[in-house]
């Protein structure tokens, strides 16, 4: 063992979490043969459990590695994660208490189900559901990569530890459902907060304070570059990245599941007030990327192999090993690894809910409601296995690129889900057309960027407007949906297909 103390603490934490995952089935026990119990925890989580669950769900291991890595490599632009995670909360407050009420009244457990009920259109719901599943797959794979990075940093070779960890994950997800990640999320978040607080106290003290750390950052990376004449430059790039990412976040199946599992609209509103604590933590964590620059880990011979293999993603693990005593490095790595397990479990469950309710029960003949939970449990295994095969067979860079695309795709469900909470102006088929235009144009622009960049410079009336592709294409999507809805409402209205009522949305 290269780092014996760190490895022992790390393994001990993982062991505790595995035990918790299996015992979670008995927590507030419900009948796990019902999909609302298995896949939504019986919609019973109060303010604090929801706080841990949604926080554990949205701020993933990949975030903890990738955001500091982006700061480490690219500088100020990486800080968009902070405005991004501020803007998600007004959106959470405005949209999701309403969605919860409707979902509760009609027994919906997924976003696509709401859309199907609203428009009586199972094909639109299928498109929304498949978007969710395809956007989630690479996201789970990235959690595996986050975990692999810390396992690799501990000097444990090979894929076996990762396969073991995710086999166990699949097993406790199967037996305990959403209760498992909810319970583990509490441990995960306490460890993450502990690690970040210690990091922002201890490391700057070792490096001579925050002033000294910022002084080591190249001036060109410390701030966004001022835009050239006739262009909004990095300013609009930064703002659209933050806004587009915020619009997309709660549309992911796993975050929707986290919200719908709460016990009521008031729990969601209180969490819109309380969850920003995670954003402060994320902002400080982003700065760990700068601490890694200032500490000079990049040029230390013992980390050369790690940087060669994992690129800038190795910045955080290297700094942790350099700055902390062995046992605390074990705590930090444990926090990151558990931070991979929680969202990965919720992602598998959420995708399974969608598969069961929006694909299997709608499109496969002979399906019966009593078999729902069984189908969902089996599909959760398929999701985890798929992600595992994904990263064992396909190079990590593809997972990153597909995750980038996933963000572009999932935002295309914004008009169908979010607008529909406020208005029934749109026509279901028009929303489907808008969705298709959005998916195709976003994919095309990302392909033109060689799947490496998420910003495209649009030229409008002689001005250059660099924009996050997701935001620009979802605007196009909404315009197409609105323009097509006008004639369709007049000639072939689908309003009669709405099983919800106007008073559900007050």
């Amino acid at each position, binding site marked *: 063992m290269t780092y014996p103390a760190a490895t022992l603490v790390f393994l001990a934490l993982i062991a505790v979490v595995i035990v918790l995952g299996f015992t979670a089935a008995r927590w507030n026990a419900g009948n796990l043969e019902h999909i609302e119990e298995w896949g939504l925890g019986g919609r019973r989580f109060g303010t604090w459990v929801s706080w841990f669950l949604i926080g554990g769900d949205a701020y993933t291991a990949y975030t903890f590695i990738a955001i500091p890595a982006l700061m480490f490599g690219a500088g*100020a632009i990486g*800080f968009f994660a*902070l*405005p991004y995670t*501020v*803007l998600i*909360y*007004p959106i959470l*407050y*405005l949209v999701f208490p309403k969605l919860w009420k409707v979902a509760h009244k009609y027994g919906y457990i997924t976003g696509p189900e709401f859309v199907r009920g609203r428009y009586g259109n199972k094909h639109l719901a299928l498109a929304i559901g498949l978007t969710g599943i395809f956007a989630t797959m690479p996201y789970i794979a990235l959690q595996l990569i986050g975990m692999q990075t810390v396992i690799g940093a501990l000097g444990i070779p090979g894929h076996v530890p990762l396969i073991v960890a995710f086999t166990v994950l699949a097993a406790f997800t199967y037996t305990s459902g959403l209760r498992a990640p909810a319970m583990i999320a509490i441990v995960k978040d306490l460890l993450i907060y502990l690690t970040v607080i210690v990091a922002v106290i201890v490391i700057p003290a070792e490096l001579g*304070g*925050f*002033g*000294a*750390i*910022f002084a080591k950052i190249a001036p060109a990376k*410390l*701030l*966004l570059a*001022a835009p050239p004449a006739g262009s909004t430059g990095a*300013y*609009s790039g*930064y*703002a659209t990245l*933050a*806004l587009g990412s915020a619009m997309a976040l709660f549309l992911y199946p796993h975050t929707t599941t986290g919200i719908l599992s709460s016990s009521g*609209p*008031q729990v969601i*509103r*209180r969490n*819109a*007030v*309380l969850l*920003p*604590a995670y*954003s*402060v933590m994320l*902002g*400080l964590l982003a*700065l760990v990327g700068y601490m890694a620059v200032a500490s000079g880990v990049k040029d230390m011979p013992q980390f050369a192999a790690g940087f060669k293999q994992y690129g800038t993603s190795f910045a955080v693990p290297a700094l942790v090993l350099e700055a902390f005593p062995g046992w605390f490095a074990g705590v930090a790595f444990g926090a990151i690894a558990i931070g991979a397990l929680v969202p990965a479990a919720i992602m598998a469950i959420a995708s399974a809910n969608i598969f069961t309710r929006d694909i299997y029960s709608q499109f496969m003949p002979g399906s019966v409601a009593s078999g729902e939970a069984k189908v969902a449990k089996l599909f959760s295994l398929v999701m985890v296995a798929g992600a595992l095969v994904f990263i064992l067979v396909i190079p990590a860079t593809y997972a990153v690129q597909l995750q980038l695309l996933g963000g572009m795709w999932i935002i295309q469900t914004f008009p169908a889900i979010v607008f529909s909470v406020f208005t029934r102006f749109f026509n279901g088929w028009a929303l489907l057309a808008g969705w298709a235009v959005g998916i195709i144009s976003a994919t095309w622009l990302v392909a033109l960027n060689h799947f490496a960049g998420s910003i495209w410079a649009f030229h409008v009336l002689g001005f250059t407007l660099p924009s996050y592709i997701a935001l620009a294409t979802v605007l196009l999507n909404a315009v197409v949906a609105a323009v097509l809805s006008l004639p369709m409402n007049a000639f072939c209205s689908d309003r009669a297909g709405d099983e919800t009522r106007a008073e559900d949305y007050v």
Partner: protein
Amino acid sequence: MFAGAAQCVTLFYLAERQDSEERDVIKILLLLVFIMVLAVPFYNQAAPALFGFPFFYWFQIALVPVASLLIYIVYRVEHGGEK
């Protein structure tokens, strides 16, 4: 006399509408969150620094509790009495 009547009607109207009007107006605070967060040119500066943090960084971190407070006010006004 007309002015007095108009004022009376307005007062009556406001008293009638006070609940829902006040509740809708308060949502402007949420718009304020978006404006502050997206005002990139305003905060893309190094000075004034605070505790060694350039303005760009500390301002954005400081926005987090401000946003939380604004959402809290909206919550209290709109739904503070509910369980």
